[in-house]
């Protein structure tokens, strides 16, 4: 039976498939053919005859279609001389033909995006996430490698280092702490050095009390010569940095606003508590806030001359044995550092003649092989992690490289998704390609078409990526402690780079599909003989590569997380929980501690009060002393404490006894050592610790009265050093420690605050918990573990997206195959395991590749910890279960859907 409606529908859908017709054209043709058919039917023709006649008189569709295309390209101003010529084709102009071609590609691309929503979504999302990760990490790495670059004099600024080598030539130590007079001496002795700037951080100066406008704050304070403003590019907003008086400070804009709000701070007075006394300073100038990528950081800078001319450094000015000053110098642009080395070597030996002796006795060839002063370029400072006590902790270059690699990895995973899905989708597009080839498209045009498609998608993804970066940047800044700004990306050079990356991404993603698809043979395209996607070797390699990357990140994340939790949960040998640490201060001849002890007596919730001269987790490590002991250079940490110290932080004694405030000789002659000290110094309990008698008289040598368990007062990246604790009579030890009960902590803290107010009302009550201070030592590692975890989750989600799409497509083409298998008796389980194995085995292979690679790198990372987990089988088992599990579920979800379908339904549709 002839079905007119059906036939018209077919005729129209043929039109629709033809890219030459636009939507409006199709409606117009529809109207035409219907008119035509109606007229024929009115003339008493049968429906079939009417349809055939109408379509015949309409003529061949492809001819109309190509004329349609031409009609859109016709030059508007057809010259009149063309009058009798066949002007429709002659007037086609190459440029507009290209435009029309591209607009057609765009249209087809748009239709494909709409037609296959899931795959388009996965494609764009993959590229978006890939590009967003790349942009973020680009910002990060850019900031890292441009650290300090904003300084105009960057090429001439150098940090002075004192380097010590071992006899075998390996690096023993790089020191930044120099004598006060080193800077002036360098300028005097070396003509090429034009300027020096010295920096000093007073004890606890990262937490100084600052009184301004009748309010007291706790603020980090840096002491420095005002030459800093000539050396570094720190623009002055107000006031002058020509130092006129030692009582001058310079504020950052941020802190100036905090202290003086809208008033002009220049000329105003503020007081800083130095050595337990408030000293008045005048604000000399306000500078712009220092960018986060500067290795010199301060908000409040005090003229160093105050300390060297008035304060406690005065008595050390000529003392070359006193080393505490970070020294930077600026050279004349024309001067060469190499030429300065002989002078530096000579200078060191002039001031430290005993280095030559030590070098000779220890078997160094020259004194320079033992110790040397060197000048380190400013631009090298940020990444030099061998220097432990610089102004800012150094950054590990490895992390930047690692992040860069992760970004490339995520971008690649996104590109691979794109490639795989495009190849997989190709069979659906085979007819389009066949048609294009039939009407004369050459391979080059097809390649251009597919590449422009992927580039368009990449550009769309770029916009989405920029949007996501904008949203994510605040979080990312918080995580990395940086001040990254999106604005950087819009500077012309970076905009070009980004566009470059995007185009490159589009090209990389599109290049294989483009060449593979354009290579179709026309007859294959129409006969449906194409088997691409999923079964293609190239696709399989890509999947393996993708999952290897994802697995590497998973294993990395597991190990890093495990190590971090090991560190945090390791029994440190003492308890920092509920230990409130408050800085001690002297108040009118007495100290906060002496009052506090009394005031807190009987306050509910307060368990113990003690004081000590050192806190744990200090970035400079634990203070102590080094000395020669039985012919060896040894070192021990020393903490001076009040009587209840061990009880307050719950250090266990293995043997002997705790200090007793009632025994007067405990103050003069008792020490408690840790296990490491007992072992390294070969001591005995109740024995004499000889070398510690500082007067050299035997009767002053202390007695070991107890042995305490080793506890980790430093970061777990280092071993436990020997340590001893001495009982001190001083009430002015630097820290007060209060152990409080875990119950009703807020009310106990409130009582502490109240008691504080009664003692030192003009100082703000600020405290930290000891365990928090310990935790800050791992802040960097924690941040990294967060960043890596997020990257890893992104990577695995993206990979699974890709795999999901791939399976979905492969299965879509095999529905009938699965139907036939079912009809022939295969069970759902058999079908699922048969098809899922095809993909799961790829993931398994990735896992096998990722295992040794990850083992190598993680072992290296773990070696940076003195206390670490072992890379056991269980981590790999867990990683394997996660990767394979997620991949398997992804695959099975899609396959199951096909396997559960009613074969009758599937096969009927076929």
């Amino acid at each position, binding site marked *: 039976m002839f079905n007119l409606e059906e036939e018209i529908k077919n005729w129209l859908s043929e039109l629709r498939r033809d890219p030459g017709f636009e939507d409006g054209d199709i409606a117009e043709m529809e109207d*035409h053919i219907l*008119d035509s058919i109606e007229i024929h039917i009115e003339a008493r023709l049968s429906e079939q005859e009417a349809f055939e006649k109408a379509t015949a008189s309409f003529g061949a569709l492809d001819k*109309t279609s190509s*004329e349609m295309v031409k009609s859109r390209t*016709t030059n*508007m101003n*057809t010259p009149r001389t063309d009058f009798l*010529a066949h002007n429709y084709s002659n007037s086609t102009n190459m440029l507009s033909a290209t435009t029309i071609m591209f607009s057609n590609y765009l249209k087809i691309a748009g239709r494909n995006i709409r037609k296959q929503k899931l795959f388009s979504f996965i494609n764009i999302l993959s590229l978006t996430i890939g590009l967003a990760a790349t942009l973020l990490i680009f910002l990060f790495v850019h900031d890292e490698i441009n650290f300090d670059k904003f300084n105009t004099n960057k090429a001439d600024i150098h940090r002075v280092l004192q380097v010590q080598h071992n006899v075998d030539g390996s690096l023993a130590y790089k020191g930044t702490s120099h004598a006060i007079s080193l800077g002036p001496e360098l300028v005097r002795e070396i003509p090429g050095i034009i300027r020096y700037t010295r920096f000093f951080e007073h004890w606890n100066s990262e937490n100084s009390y600052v009184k301004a406008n009748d309010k007291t704050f706790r603020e980090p304070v840096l002491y420095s010569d005002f030459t800093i403003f000539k050396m570094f590019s720190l623009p002055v907003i107000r006031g002058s940095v020509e130092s006129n008086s030692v009582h001058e400070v310079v504020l950052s804009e941020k802190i100036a606003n905090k202290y003086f709000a809208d008033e002009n701070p220049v000329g105003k007075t503020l007081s800083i508590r130095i050595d337990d006394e408030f000293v008045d300073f005048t604000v000399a100038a306000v500078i712009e806030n220092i960018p986060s990528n500067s290795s010199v950081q301060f908000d409040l800078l005090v003229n160093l001359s105050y300390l060297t001319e008035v304060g406690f450094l005065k008595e050390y000015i000529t003392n070359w044995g006193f080393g505490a000053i970070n020294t930077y110098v600026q050279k004349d642009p024309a001067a060469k550092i190499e030429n300065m080395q002989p002078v530096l070597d000579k200078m060191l030996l002039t001031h430290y003649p005993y280095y030559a002796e030590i070098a000779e006795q220890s078997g160094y060839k020259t004194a320079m092989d033992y110790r040397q002063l060197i000048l380190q370029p400013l631009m090298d400072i940020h990444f030099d992690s061998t220097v432990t006590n610089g102004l800012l902790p150094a950054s590990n270059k490895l992390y930047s490289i690692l992040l860069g690699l992760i970004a490339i990895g995520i971008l690649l995973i996104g590109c691979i998704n794109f490639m795989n899905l495009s190849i997989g989708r190709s069979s659906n597009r085979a007819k389009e390609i066949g048609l294009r080839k039939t009407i004369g498209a050459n391979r080059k045009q097809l390649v251009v078409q597919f590449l422009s498609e992927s580039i368009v998608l990449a550009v769309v993804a770029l916009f989405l990526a920029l949007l996501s970066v904008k949203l994510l940047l605040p979080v990312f800044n918080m995580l990395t402690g940086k001040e990254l700004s999106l604005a950087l990306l819009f500077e012309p050079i970076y905009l070009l780079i980004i566009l470059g990356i995007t185009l490159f991404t589009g090209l990389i993603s599109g290049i294989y599909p483009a060449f593979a698809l354009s290579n179709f043979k026309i007859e294959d395209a129409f006969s449906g003989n194409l088997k691409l996607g999923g079964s293609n070797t190239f696709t399989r390699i890509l999947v393996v590569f993708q999952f290897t990357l994802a697995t590497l990140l998973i294993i990395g994340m597991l190990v890093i997380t495990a190590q971090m939790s090991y560190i945090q949960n390791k029994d440190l040998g003492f308890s920092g929980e509920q230990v409130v640490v408050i800085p001690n201060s002297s108040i009118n001849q007495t100290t906060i501690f002496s009052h506090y002890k009394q005031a807190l007596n009987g306050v509910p919730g307060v368990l113990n009060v003690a004081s000590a001269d050192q806190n744990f987790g200090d970035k400079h490590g634990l203070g102590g002393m080094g000395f020669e002991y039985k012919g060896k250079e040894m070192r021990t940490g020393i903490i001076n404490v009040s009587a209840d110290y061990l009880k307050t932080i719950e250090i266990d004694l293995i043997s002997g006894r705790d200090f007793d405030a009632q025994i007067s000789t405990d103050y003069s002659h008792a020490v408690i050592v840790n296990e490491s000290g007992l072992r390294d110094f070969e001591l005995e309990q109740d024995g004499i610790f000889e070398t510690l008698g500082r007067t050299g008289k035997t009767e002053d040598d202390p007695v070991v009265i107890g042995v305490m368990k080793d506890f980790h007062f430093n970061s777990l990246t280092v071993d436990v050093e020997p340590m001893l604790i001495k009982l001190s009579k001083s009430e002015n030890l630097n820290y007060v420690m209060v152990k409080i009960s875990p119950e009703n902590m807020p009310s106990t803290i409130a009582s502490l605050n109240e008691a504080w107010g009664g003692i030192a009302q003009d100082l703000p009550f600020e405290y930290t918990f000891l365990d928090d201070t310990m935790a800050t030592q791992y802040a960097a590692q924690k941040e990294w573990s967060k960043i890596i975890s997020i990257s890893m989750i992104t990577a695995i989600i993206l990979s699974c997206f890709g795999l999901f799409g791939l399976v979905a497509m492969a299965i879509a083409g095999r529905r009938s195959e699965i139907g036939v298998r079912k009809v022939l008796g295969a069970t759902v389980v058999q079908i699922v395991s048969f098809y899922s194995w095809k993909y799961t085995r790829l993931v398994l292979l990735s896992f096998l590749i990722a295992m040794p690679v990850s083992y190598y790198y993680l072992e290296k990372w773990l070696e940076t910890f003195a206390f670490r987990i072992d890379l056991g089988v269980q981590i790999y088992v867990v990683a394997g279960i996660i990767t394979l599990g997620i991949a398997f579920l992804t695959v099975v979800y899609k396959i199951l859907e096909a396997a559960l379908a009613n074969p009758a339904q599937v096969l009927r549709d076929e």
Partner: protein
Amino acid sequence: MASKGLMAASTKPLILSILKGGKNYGYYITQKVKEISDGSLEWSDGMLYPVLHRLEKEGFIASEWIITNTGRRRKYYSITELGKQELRTEKENWMSVHAVFTQLWNLKPTI
């Protein structure tokens, strides 16, 4: 039957002439051409549309969609001022060619 070249050259004045009589749609135009030329000028219907679109693009005709009383969308074309001018030029051109041929073909061979 007119040659392909002649057909191509004559479509423009043909369409413009028909539309000068009032706005109309594609199918009507094809039928009108067939009717007037009594079949000696015959396109395949489909080929009319690219020409219409080109003329529209060149500004000689304008189009609008109208919903017919049967609910169908139909695209109507009408001649523009520019089109009328173009038609006049075309007419002059065709007439001058026509004049040339008339003269040529009315002349007796000189032997």
